[in-house]
């Protein structure tokens, strides 16, 4: 017999058992679907699909009652941490509170029920929305124009690099290398590779910033550009951005801004004003479109004047009284199946419009205030990797703690779960040993920061008193530490693989 759909023992409220998969809950003959009355006569499959194409078996998916589906999914949700439950100080991820208002925007029938191929005359509202968002993003970044097509940050990176490539090509300039600091997020080098360029790594100084001399040494007229995050991934502002820009521009290269950390500088500084030519933004970070457990996101790319003609197309544009589509003259082409993650874009616009200029500046101020307060407060127990003012996040290191107690950054992170907080990012950036990358975001209150600091202090104290307990963490969670090695050794990625592996 299949598993019981009405037993809640996997909900942390009443139990610690595992939740059956929907396939274990499945029972042939059971069904939740209710299809409308159409009045259209059904036809025999045989009369429509000739034998060579016809499935000869029934495609078996799963057979659930609506009640059991609801129980299952609700219990799964109870097994999931989220911003709405508590703080999520995950560095580089900007897990701020996502205003619920945006959910209602995304649910508007007039936005949600529009076919992407409908003629522009029938989608004027959407086009105005997209054009407005593009203008706002350009205002925020200090750029000339933007494409809204990229579906996430990494897609934005690759788009931006292809723009860089097209720009150089158009000038008959076959450059080959792109510089990236060693602190960069892993998607940066991956995107460079996919764009057909080669990565040249630029080391960081002991201050956590780009090594200007090393940079200069790596420059040459085969350098297409540099990819920078500013503030960078250790949370520090690249104070030498002006000389960097001058150097790179000096050899004819372009500056690419990885905007994942834009939250720190909203209304304080603009990539365009720093000399960047190409900027991608992670709307799912800075502009509070919720992250969806891993996605969707949106990664618009804004560019300076000299790159506008290369933008992906078609682009939504103002046209007389209304709006239409236009392909840029030397467009690199499409980078999305349609027009980008439109509903994510609508959410971001809603966020920008509620905040306005002052509100966005206040966001950055409080993101930076929170991070610096935590950095200072934690100095005694988990010192910052670089002892200077940070921006929206701080990277601390557990190296000393490990040496003294054997407790590692990972153990601290897992213990934090038991304290009622999501863990920070660990072991990133790679240039910091035993890194814990903490990004509180501006929507966490000072009281929450104190509680978080106290929790970390308790954990560090416990590491000295009772390291075993810290190694054993987490204990309060639905499952304890997970055997990741086994998962990778014997891949069990589907219910059917589980059955073949004798796990069902």
């Amino acid at each position, binding site marked *: 017999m299949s598993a019981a759909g009405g037993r809640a023992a996997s909900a942390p409220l009443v139990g610690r058992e595992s939740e059956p998969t929907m396939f274990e809950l499945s029972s042939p003959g059971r069904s939740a679907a209710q299809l409308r009355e159409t009045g259209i006569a059904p036809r025999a499959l045989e009369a429509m699909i000739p034998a060579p194409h016809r499935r000869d078996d029934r495609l078996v998916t799963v057979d659930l009652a609506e009640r059991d589906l609801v129980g299952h999914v609700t219990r799964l949700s109870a097994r999931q941490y989220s911003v709405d439950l508590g703080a999520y100080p995950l560095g580089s991820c900007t897990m701020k509170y996502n205003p619920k208002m945006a959910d209602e925007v995304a649910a508007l029938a007039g936005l949600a029920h529009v076919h992407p191929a409908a003629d522009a005359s029938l989608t004027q509202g959407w086009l*105005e929305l997209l054009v407005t968002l593009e203008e706002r993003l350009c*205002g925020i970044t200090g750029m000339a124009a933007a494409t809204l097509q990229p579906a996430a940050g990494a897609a934005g990176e690759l788009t931006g690099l292809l723009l860089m490539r097209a720009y150089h090509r158009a000038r008959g300039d076959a450059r080959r290398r792109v510089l990236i600091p060693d602190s960069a997020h892993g998607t940066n080098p991956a995107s460079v590779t996919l764009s*057909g360029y080669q990565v040249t790594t630029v080391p960081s100084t002991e201050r956590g910033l780009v090594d200007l001399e090393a940079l200069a040494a790596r420059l040459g007229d085969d350098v297409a550009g540099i990819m920078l995050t500013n503030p960078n991934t250790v949370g520090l502002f690249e104070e030498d951005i002006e000389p960097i820009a001058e150097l790179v521009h000096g050899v004819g290269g372009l500056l690419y801004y990885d905007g994942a950390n834009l939250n720190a500088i909203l209304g304080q500084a603009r990539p365009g004003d720093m000399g960047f030519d190409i900027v991608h933004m992670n709307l799912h970070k800075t502009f509070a479109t919720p992250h969806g457990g891993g996605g969707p996101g949106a990664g618009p790319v804004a560019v300076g004047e000299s790159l506008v003609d290369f933008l992906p197309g078609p682009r939504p544009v103002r046209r007389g009284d209304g709006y239409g589509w236009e392909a840029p003259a030397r467009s690199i082409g499409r980078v999305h199946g349609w027009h980008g993650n439109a509903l994510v874009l609508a959410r971001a616009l809603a966020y920008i419009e509620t905040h306005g200029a002052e509100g966005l500046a206040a966001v950055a101020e409080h993101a930076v205030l929170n991070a610096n307060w935590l950095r200072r407060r934690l100095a005694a127990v988990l010192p910052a990797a670089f002892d200077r003012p940070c921006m929206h996040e701080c990277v601390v290191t557990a190296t000393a703690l490990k040496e003294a107690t054997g407790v590692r950054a990972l153990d601290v992170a897992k213990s934090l779960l038991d304290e009622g907080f999501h863990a920070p990012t660990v072991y990133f950036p790679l240039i910091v040993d035993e890194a814990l990358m903490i990004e509180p975001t501006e929507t966490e209150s*000072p009281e929450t920061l104190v509680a978080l600091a106290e929790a970390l202090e308790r954990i560090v104290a416990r590491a000295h008193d009772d390291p075993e307990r810290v190694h054993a963490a987490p204990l309060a969670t639905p499952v304890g530490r997970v055997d990741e090695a086994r998962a990778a050794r014997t891949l069990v990625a589907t219910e059917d693989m589980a059955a073949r592996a004798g796990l069902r």
Partner: protein
Amino acid sequence: MPNYLPHTAEQDAAMLSFLGLERLEDLFAHLPAAVRLAGGLPIPAGRSELDVLDGLAALADRNVAAGLTCFAGVGAYDHDIPPVVRALASRSEFVTAYTPYQPEVAQGVLQALFEYQTLVARLSGLPVANASLYDGAASLVEALNLAASTTGRQGVLLSRGVHPHWRAAARTFAAGTGHQIEEVPLVGGVTAWPMGARDDLAAVVVGYPNYLGYLEDVAIARAVADESGALLVVAGDPVAAALVRSAGSWGADVFVGEGQALGTALSFGGPYLGLFAVREELVRRLPGRIVGETADTAGRRAFVTTLRAREQDIRRERATSNVCTNQTLMAVTAAIQLGWLGTDGLHEMALRCASGAHELAERVTQIPGVQAASEAPFVREFALRLGRPVEPVLAAMARRGILGGVAARALDPGDGTRGEGDDVLIVTVTERHRARDLDAYVAALGEAVAS
């Protein structure tokens, strides 16, 4: 200015003083003066969220398309999404979580993705699926990268039956990867494959059904691939998959598809859901994330993202994919929608789409001047030749409350060609259409082409 910040003025002051600072702007004192923004952002002042909501609702009201009966498809389908799916998929635990980096507190998303992977594998007829990519176009792009890295070759035979926008995207990204994409034209609605072995061929890509709705003989594509030792990539549709042979059973190495039909609204084209499944041998080359089953220290079943050695944060410049954020929420939604439909519901839904499409095809081709674009079999969409430009016809139908389909030439493949011709209209029927909707369609099209 909105009220999303929890800091009181006193708290700001106390925190600043703890830092030895006086004003909030002092936090940015170390930024070079030249890059400090003076005068604030050049964007409007903030407004209350209720005012903003009203403004966006007014914009939304100007999308006439939202109110039309939708016969447009071609990768974006107007299926019913029942309230229960909306309610479950919008639970804030799913919506406001990050990527499941801490599996101990992310079993909800992880298990839902495991279930999604199982369902995509079953739909594709292939054993392993990933946890989603951005959309169908992105899946195609990743499939080409996978084929290239697997074969060490760059050549691609890409049927023009594959969605024109996906082809366009493939071409865009090929500028970086260096893939050599050759498009293979359609003749009579199906691909006219070139024969002959080649030593540069990484992938052969066929749409099944193709973007005009037609079912092609995938066996030929398989043979073309085999001749040259290339991988066969089948671009399929999850609803049609309920009725037609699976990609796996045609011998596909890779299945790619657009999963929007599984519980995600039309959404003006995104966020959608890139489906991706492969043969077991290719699993370690899967782009994007993959969730695997394992156990915790107490032996309890647990799920975790796995094969991370492939991931961009580890591989960096040696990576063959840069995908990080994906479409998890849409994947979770798809699992819930398929859970609601169930085996029989999915079959019945697909059958209704097909029944309606076949009825409509029969009826509209009786309108003088309107012809089927092909005699090939189809499932729920088909192409018509109107013998005249399609746009004015669609405009006339819109005035009668009907979004009559997609003009083939509106789908710009970006290669200079304009699809299958100016007079080709692609028409899609879903389970939402009622007999009276078909009647209205026939009447409106008849009138539009008669005028």
